[in-house]
């Protein structure tokens, strides 16, 4: 997710509102948390991408129930 989010930075998420395209979200798959940006919503699922196109691995579309929250703060 570089250059906006770098290794060892902390993020705060907010989950009281629905997420939108271009939001950066944290989601959970099999007990592991991931951070990605929402590219689009398709067929009721969220298609996510990384900001760092050189490094980003591709993810299968994410379910809304897997979303932990929208990233609102980096510190």
């Amino acid at each position, binding site marked *: *997710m570089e250059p906006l*989010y770098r290794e060892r930075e*902390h*993020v*705060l998420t907010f989950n009281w509102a629905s997420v939108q395209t271009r939001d950066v979200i*944290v989601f959970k*798959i099999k007990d*592991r*948390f*991931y*951070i*990605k940006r929402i590219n689009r919503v398709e067929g009721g699922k969220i298609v996510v991408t*990384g900001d*760092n*196109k*050189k*490094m*980003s*691995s*591709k*993810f*299968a579309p994410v379910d809304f129930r897997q979303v932990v929250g929208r990233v609102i*703060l980096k*510190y």
Partner: protein
Amino acid sequence: MIMLRLIDKFFPPNIVYAHCDVPCGIYDPHEAQMAAYTVLRMTQMIMELKASSEDPVFDERKKIISQIARLTKVKEDHAEVVKHQVRVIWGDYFKPEHLTNYKNLHDLVFKIMKQASSAKQNVDVKACQDLIANVQKFAENFWESKGRKTVRISSGYPTEGELILPQ
């Protein structure tokens, strides 16, 4: 911020990853094709740059140098995107059994790597077109290996040319 970091010391937050190590089966050579066309377009735009005279004034030189730097940066970045996308599909998607049907796959990927480097090193439209042609062959092999027929459609890009898409 300091306060939040302090709280995190006592209540450590969960670790969040930006990359997954689990192959998800989502592969598509479309991004490689788009990136290859971007490399071509940047090359064309560099070649189209013209100065008002043989010895332009310093301000005009600065502007041209700045434009070349920007175009070159995008060209470099997208040539790397081509290499990355092709490497991922080649390394993660293609399996040894595919090689029976695609005997030239390794050679094709090797050519793409070299041509992408050549497109970076030079301002050469022909090198970019060769790169696109081989990325398209790669895309055709990829879709064919998944049992999908492909179609060639007009790209609609300023570069013109075609895109390989699954039917």
